[in-house]
Structures are given as structure tokens and as C-alpha cells.
């Protein structure tokens, strides 16, 4: 590692010097330019918001700064000393701490141990004293006036308290710059408020914080500086007063985003396709009741960990509920296994399509047909290849999958096209009910609209569709109704004009 003094690069007028500056960082992964000439200045006592869509390079930038990745070119300046690269130890020694979304805590250890252990490891301590650890943890917890049970095992804590533990851990290691990845995604309204109060206290201590987030209203509420990235570049940066939610969205996506809402008119007499009654899985969700009509698209939303995914997984037979009933077209469905759900006509596009929804090394054609072999049998129970071929080429065309041909392995496809293959796999089975979990996560803006359009088409042909998502504009754009799940219960149902980004956010945070 080369160290050389660098004179302040901040142009005149501002005599504060940044704790950490990033100068002209570039990084390539194979053919992808993940970061191109990125610069950033972080000042003490300031909250800096780093915004951008999925895959814009935010996480790569954090990894470079925290030493998990080496940049191809550029400089990281800490306290006026330039480094051509960092490593994890030197980053921690310089007071740079990253709190990832999963917090990297040890669930079987106590809160006190989690707070203290990492810093003890950093100074290569040989001995450990529970009383000294408790005292140190107590000091930081009291200083921040938090209500944390130091003797509790971290595994038993709520997400918000895990986050507080992670923040305390960072501060015990004398953090001066704290990066927080999507810090509010899994928090309720009151928890977010508590976090922001804590953030103010940390600012008073002169800590610099970087929030990585895509929640526009929160960005404006808590930060002083905003930097927006798109395709590996910084598109704009400045004090928060210069931005509003609209301009941030424009910079993030590169165009004006209009909240379009296109939903079909459902006839009143449309038959109920899916009926869920009193569904309960203790510890995950309780007493879930709703129905979906033929041709209807409903949205299910809620905070991360609210139970929305578990409800979907139960409908698909992955998690057997404790009690309750599910009927498809009036017929009761046994929810004991995936096979039961599939034969009842329920399809499920999972959250993590790469590991759960696709055979990555196999061709597009094999993936499309993988779920519907029984629908393509000849009378001898062997595969009817003519029928298979017809289905594959029909769906390949219909879903406008961008690939040279159907023989290309799925691994080579972009996020949007891979998602279309997962969709095609389920459409090949002709489901009566299709459940999609985060259908456009990691998909670019153009593909996103096409995928939503596809869903509208399928609903128009009589399918009942459930979209699980925390992307409010997406729900507004295509859903007839939106159900809000809070702590395992459906707490709100938005219909008609109530389906708006503001109403959904209000209801979720309540």
C-alpha cells in the first residue's frame, strides 16, 4: 500500500476538511464498468445519502472503501493521507465501518459480547472478561440512551434492536464513518423515528454517516448531502436543499417517472379464483383472509420480515400452515406440498430467482419446459416433443425474451430476461393463480414496464395474480387492490383511488 500526503482538494470557501474522500475511483468486473471515475467527500457530523437503483455501483463503492474490493484506479484519502487501496483491517483502523443489511452479528452470543468482541479482536486481545465487556457495552448503550438488554442473545432480538447492536459495535471500535446499507427497509415507523434520533446524536459526536437507500422521502428527511449514482457514475451531488423526491427519482432513473396506473375494469360478477380463509402459521402470520377474482391483480406489501413472503410460500406449499383453508375455483387445496399447490393450479415466482427459480447452466428452452412436463406427455407417457417445441417457441416470442436463440444458457441473460424465463416456465403450466415475489427486483426500468404489461395481459386472459413487492410505484401501476401486511397480519386493504404511493407508505409505516 502506498501512502502519500495529499493537500486538501476541496475548492475554496469551505475550511472544513473531510474525514474521508474518494477520488476518481474506477473498477471493472469483466466487461462491466462497475465504477467509473467516482468521487465523494464525507465531512464529520454529516449524513450523506448515496442513492441509486439496483446495480448502479453503490455496493461496489462501499466494498472498495471498506477494503473488500481493490479499485483499478483512483485514491481513497483518509485524514489527508492517500491510499491507492484499502484492506479490511486498515479500513477498520481508519474508523470506517460498514453495517450491512444482514448486520453480520453472532446470534448465539449476547448483545454485550457482540458489541465488544470485534474491537477486542482488532487489538489482538488474549483474554476476555465478561464483566469488563458488559461495562464497556453498558457505557456505549447508556451514552446513546438506548434500551437494550445486554444479556439477551442476539438471535432473539427484533430487527431494530439487532441494528442498534450493530451500531453500538461500530462505535465501540471508534467508528468515524459509518456506512449503513438500506437501514430503514425492515423498520416500522416508530423504529425509524428512533433510528433518526440516534443519528442526530451520532452527528453531534462528529461521526459521518452514509445512508445507502432508495426511500426518497427518508433521504430528504435525514441527510444533509445527497449523491446519486447511475450505471457506475456519480450523476449529481449536492446539499439536500437542492433536491426533491421528483428530481432524485429523475436522476436515479435518467428520465421522468410518471406514476401511471393502468388497471382493467373488473366486472362485479367476476368469479373468485382464489380464496384464503383464516390461514395461520404461528410465528409467521395469523388469521389471513383475502380473495382474488378472475382477472384481478392484487398487491401484497409490508416491511421486510412482516410475513408477506411466508404467506406466499404457504400458498405454494413450501410452509405448511397450522390452520386455515385455501380454495382455488371453490375447490379446497391441501397445502402439504408443492406438488399439491402446482396441481391445484398455483404458480410461484420466488424472490431469489437465480437460486430458486432457474437452472442457470441449462438452456432457455429447458428452463421454460421444466415445470410443465406433465402437460406435454404423449399417450405413451413419453414427452411429446412437437408439443414441447410449440410451447417453447410460443412463449419465447410472447414474452419477448432477448437472446440469440432458445438454446442459450440462462446464465448469460440479463436480470430482466432471466425473470421472463421464470415467468415463461410458469405460464407453460397454465396456472390459475400466479404469485410473484418481487417480480422486478434487479430488473432495469425498461424491462420492468414490459414485465408489468405482461402481467396485465395474463390477468386479462383470466389469471388471478398476486404481486408481492415493496416497490410502491410498481404496485400502484398494476394492482387493482393492495393488501398491507404488518407483523404477520393483514392490517389494511387499499382499493381504487386509495391505491397510491403515499397511501401505501402511510399504511405500511403505521
Amino acid at each position, binding site marked *: 500500500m502506498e501512502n502519500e500526503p495529499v493537500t486538501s482538494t476541496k475548492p475554496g470557501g469551505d475550511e472544513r476538511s473531510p474525514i474521508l474522500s474518494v477520488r476518481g475511483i474506477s473498477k471493472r468486473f469483466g466487461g462491466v464498468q462497475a465504477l467509473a471515475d467516482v468521487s465523494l467527500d464525507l465531512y464529520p457530523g454529516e449524513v450523506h445519502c448515496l442513492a441509486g437503483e439496483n446495480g448502479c455501483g453503490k455496493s461496489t463503492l462501499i466494498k472498495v472503501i471498506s477494503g473488500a474490493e481493490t479499485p483499478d484506479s483512483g485514491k481513497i484519502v483518509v485524514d489527508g493521507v492517500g491510499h491507492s487501496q484499502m484492506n479490511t483491517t486498515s479500513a477498520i483502523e481508519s474508523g470506517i465501518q460498514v453495517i450491512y443489511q444482514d448486520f453480520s452479528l*453472532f446470534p448465539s*452470543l449476547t448483545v454485550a459480547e457482540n458489541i465488544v468482541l470485534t474491537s477486542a479482536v482488532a487489538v489482538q486481545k488474549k483474554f476476555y472478561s465478561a464483566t469488563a465487556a458488559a461495562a464497556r457495552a453498558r457505557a456505549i448503550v447508556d451514552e446513546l440512551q438506548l434500551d437494550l438488554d445486554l444479556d439477551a442473545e442476539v438471535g432473539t432480538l427484533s430487527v431494530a434492536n439487532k441494528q442498534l447492536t450493530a451500531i453500538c459495535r461500530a462505535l465501540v471500535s471508534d467508528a468515524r464513518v459509518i456506512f449503513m446499507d438500506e437501514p430503514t427497509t425492515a423498520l416500522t415507523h416508530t423504529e425509524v423515528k428512533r433510528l433518526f434520533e440516534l443519528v442526530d446524536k451520532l452527528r453531534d459526536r462528529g461521526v459521518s454517516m452514509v445512508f445507502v437507500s432508495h426511500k426518497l422521502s427518508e433521504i430528504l428527511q435525514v441527510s444533509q448531502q445527497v449523491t446519486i449514482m447511475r450505471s457506475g457514475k456519480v450523476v449529481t451531488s449536492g446539499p439536500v436543499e437542492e433536491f426533491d423526491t421528483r428530481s432524485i427519482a429523475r436522476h436515479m432513473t435518467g428520465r421522468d417517472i410518471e406514476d401511471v396506473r393502468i388497471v382493467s375494469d373488473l366486472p362485479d360478477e367476476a368469479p373468485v379464483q382464489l380464496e384464503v380463509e383464516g390461514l395461520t402459521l404461528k*410465528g409467521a402470520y395469523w388469521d389471513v383472509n383475502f380473495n382474488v377474482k378472475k382477472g384481478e391483480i392484487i398487491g401484497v406489501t409490508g416491511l421486510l420480515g412482516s410475513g408477506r413472503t411466508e404467506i406466499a410460500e404457504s400458498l405454494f406449499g413450501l410452509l405448511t400452515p397450522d390452520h386455515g383453508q385455501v380454495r382455488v375455483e371453490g375447490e379446497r387445496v391441501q397445502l402439504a406440498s408443492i406438488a399439491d399447490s402446482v396441481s391445484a393450479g398455483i404458480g410461484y415466482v420466488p424472490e431469489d430467482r437465480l437460486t430458486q427459480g432457474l437452472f442457470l447452466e441449462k438452456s432457455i428452452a429447458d428452463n421454460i419446459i421444466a415445470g410443465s412436463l406433465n402437460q406435454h406427455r404423449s399417450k405413451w407417457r413419453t414427452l411429446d416433443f412437437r408439443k414441447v417445441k410449440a410451447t417453447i417457441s410460443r412463449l419465447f416470442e410472447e414474452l419477448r425474451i432477448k437472446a440469440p436463440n432458445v438454446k442459450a444458457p440462462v446464465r448469460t441473460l440479463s436480470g430482466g430476461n432471466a425473470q421472463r424465463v421464470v415467468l415463461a416456465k410458469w405460464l407453460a403450466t397454465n396456472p390459475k393463480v400466479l404469485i410473484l415475489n418481487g417480480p422486478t427486483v434487479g430488473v432495469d426500468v425498461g424491462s420492468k414496464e414490459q414485465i408489468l404489461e405482461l402481467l396485465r395481459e395474463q390477468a386479462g386472459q383470466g389469471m388471478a395474480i398476486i404481486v408481492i413487492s415493496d416497490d410502491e410505484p410498481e404496485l400502484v401501476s398494476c394492482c387493482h387492490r393492495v393488501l398491507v401486511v404488518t407483523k404477520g397480519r393483514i392490517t389494511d386493504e387499499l382499493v381504487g383511488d386509495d391505491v397510491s404511493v403515499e397511501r401505501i407508505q402511510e399504511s405500511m409505516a403505521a
Partner: protein
Amino acid sequence: MDIRKTLRKLQGRNNEGTLLLVLLAIVIGMSLLNPVFFTANTAFAVLRSATVPMILALSVLLVIISGGIDVSFPVVAIASAYTTVTILLATGTDVPMVVVFAIAAAIGAILGLVNGFVIAKFRLPTLIVTLGTQGVFFGAMLTYVGAKYFPELPPTMAALSTVNILDFTTAHGRANLHVLVLLAIVATLLVWAVLKWTMFGRSLYAIGDDYEGAHRAGFRVVRTQILTYVLVGVIASMAGVAHITMSRAANPQDLVGGELDIIAAVVLGGASIFGGRGSVGGTVLGVLLIQVINNSLLLVGVPSAWLRAAVGILLIVGVGIQAVSARRKAQRVHSVEDVMDLTVAQRKEA
């Protein structure tokens, strides 16, 4: 709230409290059934037979906390002790007991180093590696050290084998407490202190909990893992020497195949087979429980062949309880706090 906290403390983080109750229940039940059971003779006999399993269990505890499993420890124990005895007999030297333990410990450390190096450097599954080295170590011992049964031990060891710390006659015959019980007690206290008071001990829990996370947090995982297996070798060799001394003969076929009892004891003692959990207190209770069960089943006349079956069932029950509760936990997206909030909210509604 305070009562709940005290109850939680009494139950222990790994259900040690429950285990203690079960142990007490069996002791009381057996004493009522058969008064001979509740005597110093039985107590001393149980302690004597628990000595070697206890020391071995401590070594297994370390590995299990770190998220691994070791099945080579009985072979490491007997190989290091048997080799030591063979060297002493072949050269006709007689050395103080401390030196006997030191030689065995050195051999145990080398064997442990082999395990640790292969596992930590190449990140291989611990079960497979130790299953492999178990065969290698055993074969190497039989080939290069010998397969002979020595009925006579070197004089110091033979002398130690008859030393008791307590020795008296009761209505039920002679009751004596062997001196090597002290070795088990000292080893137990040492391992307890290491786990509680050293960063090495705390690192074991962290690594067992989340290997990647520990790595990211700056723990030196490779070093810690290698050190763990070296320690396992050293502790196991102590057990080997204790075993040969107490049985007054050196048999290279002894101990081998006894993994089941030891691993069952540690798992019953609350150590999680998935890593990150386990306590010395629980392990002591687990070992005693299995010894008492073995002893009492024999007393009520259960054929010894069924003892192994009983221990096997206990192991599966122990792991089963862990696995089921782990699955419950994974399924539970809401923490205990959330559920409490919810019930409070429901009560308010009502």
C-alpha cells in the same frame, strides 16, 4: 419480570437446568428402586468410569462449539498413550508421570495438527477429514508402533494405577475414589476457564455461529481452527494415558469405537451440532447422565448390548430436539419481542 429472568437463568442458556433435573430424577428413582444405588460405592464407581469419557468429552465440546465434529479423538487418545507406553517399555526407561503425560501430549498435538491443518487450510468438511485421519492414525499405529497387548505398565504408571484419594469400607464393600478423577476435574476447570476468560474461547463461539461473519469481523479463523484441533489432540492424549493407567494394561484396540457415548454426552449437554453453543457445565451433566444411565440399566438387569442402543437413542433425541427447535426458529420471522408486542396489543383490543 424478575421471576422470569431468574427462571431463565436457572434453566441455563442450553437447558442445563432441565438436564440437572432429569439427572436428579433418575438418581432418586433408582435409589428408591434399589437402595444399593444410593451409596458411596456406586457414586465412586460412576465417577471412576466417568473420568476418561469426561476428558474426551471436553475435547469434543471444543470442536462442536467451533461448528465442527471430530470422530478421530478416540484413536488420537489411544495412539498417543499407547505409543508413549511402547517407547517407555522398549527403551526400559522409567520417567515421572508428568513426563509420561508430556510425551503423550506432544504426540496428540501432532496428530491434532494434522486434522486442523487439513480442515482449516483446505476448508474441508470436518466429519469426512476426521473419519479419514481416524483410519490413517489407527492403521499407522498398528503398523509402525505395534499391535501387541502389554499387560505390564512402566513402574510409575503401574504405581499410580492403585492410588486412591478416598478409600474406606462400607456395608456394601470397599469404596475407593481413584486419584485420576482429579485429572478430569482439573481438565474441566481449565477448559471452562479457557472458554470463559480467553479471546480464543470466545472466538470459538463466534466461528461456530457464523464462519463468514467471524472472518469479516477480523477473527483469525484459520489459526483458531488449527489451534482447536491441536488442543483436542492434547486433551484426548491425557484421556488416553488416564485410560491405560486405570485399566493397568495397554491395549491398542481400546477406546476406538467409543465415539458414540462421548458425542452423545456432549450433545445431550446442550452443545449445538450446528456450532456456536455449548457449555462445560452441560457437558459434565451429559457425561454423568450417560454414566448413570449405563450404571442403573445394568443394576436393573438390562443386558449390556442394550446399553449402546439406549445411548444411540439418547443421541438422536438430543440432536432431534436441537434440530426441531432450530427449524422452528428459522420459520419464526418474528422475534420473541414482536410476538410479545402483538399479544399486548391484542389484550388492549380486547
